[in-house]
């Protein structure tokens, strides 16, 4: 997708009158860029291809020819087996619920705190932002035990709500930092105009800031969704019952103590990344629009 864009923009420059020699040179550069982008594309797609060709292989085929060979016959047994073994439809539902919950809650939290820090005047807001940024760097391993005891104390251990709250808070640290930086460049005239019209702070947030920021909020929500989807440590620690677990935790089924089944692993990876890819394709337009909107501001 990326290289298409490059080819297009390069082609748009072409009709300009240029000397023969210059055109030739530019042609060469264009081909070079195209080749480079194709190589990058191949590099990006390589893991997907690897997962795909190994997921449909038979065990003996893998044992005899290894991971890089083209499958001698195609079978979907491993995919079906993993789906069954992991009760995958349930896991998909759980992951979707948790990821969606986190992305709504985290965007909401980030928006409110960023509004205070970015637009409102809070003493020492830059210090607070720096601390939030530091907060995003804390390794999760170090906070797992406190979180576990807190969740047990309030009776939320082994519930998805616990995971949603914890991850939403963690991610809103980054969200707050990002949104506050964007909001600090928010045109003051618009805010002053609204104030003169008699809008309260709530009304300014809901009627002025949110509509303008909407594309950025959507991007943030999308990222939160995908990050949460890939989250492993907190779900594995907090969700004990299989019925509560997420897709990324279920992937562990393919790895034993000493061994892993490479075909099952490929099938699991394929099933594991497919939802995020589909989600990304659906929201791709929102994403590019959001990024572009941010850039113009």
């Amino acid at each position, binding site marked *: 997708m990326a290289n298409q864009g490059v080819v297009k923009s390069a082609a748009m420059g072409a009709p300009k009158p240029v000397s023969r020699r210059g055109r030739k040179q530019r042609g060469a550069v264009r081909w070079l860029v195209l080749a480079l982008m194709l190589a990058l594309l191949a590099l990006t797609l390589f893991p997907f291809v690897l997962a795909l060709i190994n997921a449909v292989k038979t065990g*003996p085929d*893998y044992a005899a020819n290894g991971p890089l060979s083209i499958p001698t016959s195609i079978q979907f047994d491993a995919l079906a087996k993993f789906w069954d073994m992991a009760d995958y439809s349930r896991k998909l539902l759980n992951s979707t619920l948790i990821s969606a*919950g986190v992305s709504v809650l985290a965007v909401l939290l980030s928006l409110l705190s960023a509004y205070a820090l970015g637009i409102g005047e809070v003493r020492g807001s830059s210090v607070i932002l720096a601390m939030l940024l530091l907060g995003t760097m804390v390794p999760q391993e170090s906070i797992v035990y406190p979180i576990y005891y807190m969740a047990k104390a309030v009776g939320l251990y082994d519930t998805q709500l616990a995971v*949603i709250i914890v991850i939403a808070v963690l991610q809103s640290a980054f969200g707050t930092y990002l949104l506050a930086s964007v909001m600090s460049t928010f045109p003051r005239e618009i805010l002053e105009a609204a104030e003169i019209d008699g809008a309260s702070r709530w009304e300014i947030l809901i009627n002025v800031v949110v509509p303008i920021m909407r594309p950025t909020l959507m991007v943030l929500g999308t990222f939160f969704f995908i990050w949460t989807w890939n989250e492993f440590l907190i779900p594995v620690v907090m969700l004990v*019952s299989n019925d509560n677990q997420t897709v990324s935790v279920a992937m*562990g089924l393919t790895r034993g103590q000493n*061994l892993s089944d490479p075909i099952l692993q490929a099938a699991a990876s394929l099933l594991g990344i497919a939802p995020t890819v589909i989600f990304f394709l659906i929201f791709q337009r929102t994403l590019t629009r959001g990024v572009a909107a941010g850039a113009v501001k």
Partner: protein
Amino acid sequence: MIKLTTLALAAASTLALLGGIAQAQDKTFNIWWFEGADSAQGIAWAKALDEFKAAHPDVTVNFEQKTFAQLQQSGSMILNSNEAPDVLQYNKGNATAGLVASQGLLTNLDDYVVSQGWDKILNEGDFVLSRYDERGIYGSGPVWGIPANGEYVSAFYNIDMFEKAGLMVPTSIEEWEAAMDTFQKQGVTPLALGGVDTSGQHLLASLAYTQADDTWIQNYQGLKEPLDGAPFLYAAQKLVDWVGKGYISKDSTGMKDPDAALLFTSGKAPIYVSGTWNLGGFSATIKDFKWGQFIIPTPKYSVGSTGNLWVIPTGAKNKDLAAEWISLTLSPKYQTEMANAGGVAIAADPATITNPVGKNAVEVFKQISDKNGLGFYPDWPVPGFYDVLNQKDTGLFQGSLTAEQFVEEIKQVYDDAQANQ
């Protein structure tokens, strides 16, 4: 804004409800294990579970397939909560079963050992990793867990390639070296090895244990004295020698076990030294040639141990049922089932086993176990020793460490831990 809050609240309460439903009914029996459904243990236990359910129609039996990673990551947290099951499979060793036993999270099984007759089925050597003292160190103290299977490291070999080269199964290290020499002269690198993974240090330890006596093993595993490096020096010298002679590929320094196993399963390398956990996978996937396994020739000690443990959490609600389940997995019927699925059943009668792979494995394990020859794994005595050994033996394979330097460097780590325990 308000809408969103209501939505979030609604979602939250639904979730809370979902969580609540999971805990219901009074007579439920929860059982967990992490062995894969395709593994010999998984196959045998699934069948045993059917019988168990049929024998207790009044009990709702909930089985959950757990993952090794989950229990490794959060085992003690789960055991310390209301979500702990009635019986579960737990990783043996000081850092895992020993730790949770010393934290008081497991049920003392001493009474069950006698009342259920487990002491008649397992010999005292099989109980070594079941006992943990108050510090969580194995070897003495009450019984906290029961193994149903065993495991050992051996050399897997390609029978077809051996026959073609006119070679017999080696019965001494010299014969083994001669066999590798024959392959090497034919242009075949004989030994597949994952230098940065377990199979590297398992080969190292297998060779070291050929030089070990009872005192050495007890001192080494018990962290009783500063390391006597002689057996490791012998092993390291052998490995350096083998790399030099081309028995081990220089590429194996950066290799992981799955890739090394692939060299064996694809028929490129005739020998691969690794554990019995490969038996199931090799049986299922090697179709192009005949293969077998031989024990690395040793006077007494081999790398191996009893398997993971059945444990009963302190908070379990149906302890008698849990003990009954453990007895079922140790019963002749399901021991034979496990061996027939290609597994190393700990107390199966070889005469009843029809699967040649499982039969051989059970016999070999019995041989080692009967002479008390389980030397355990080389990384056990010192926390973090697994990575140290991997790192240092990679240096050995690469040639950046001599055999003497290798022994000196692991001795330093070992002696530090020994002095500071």
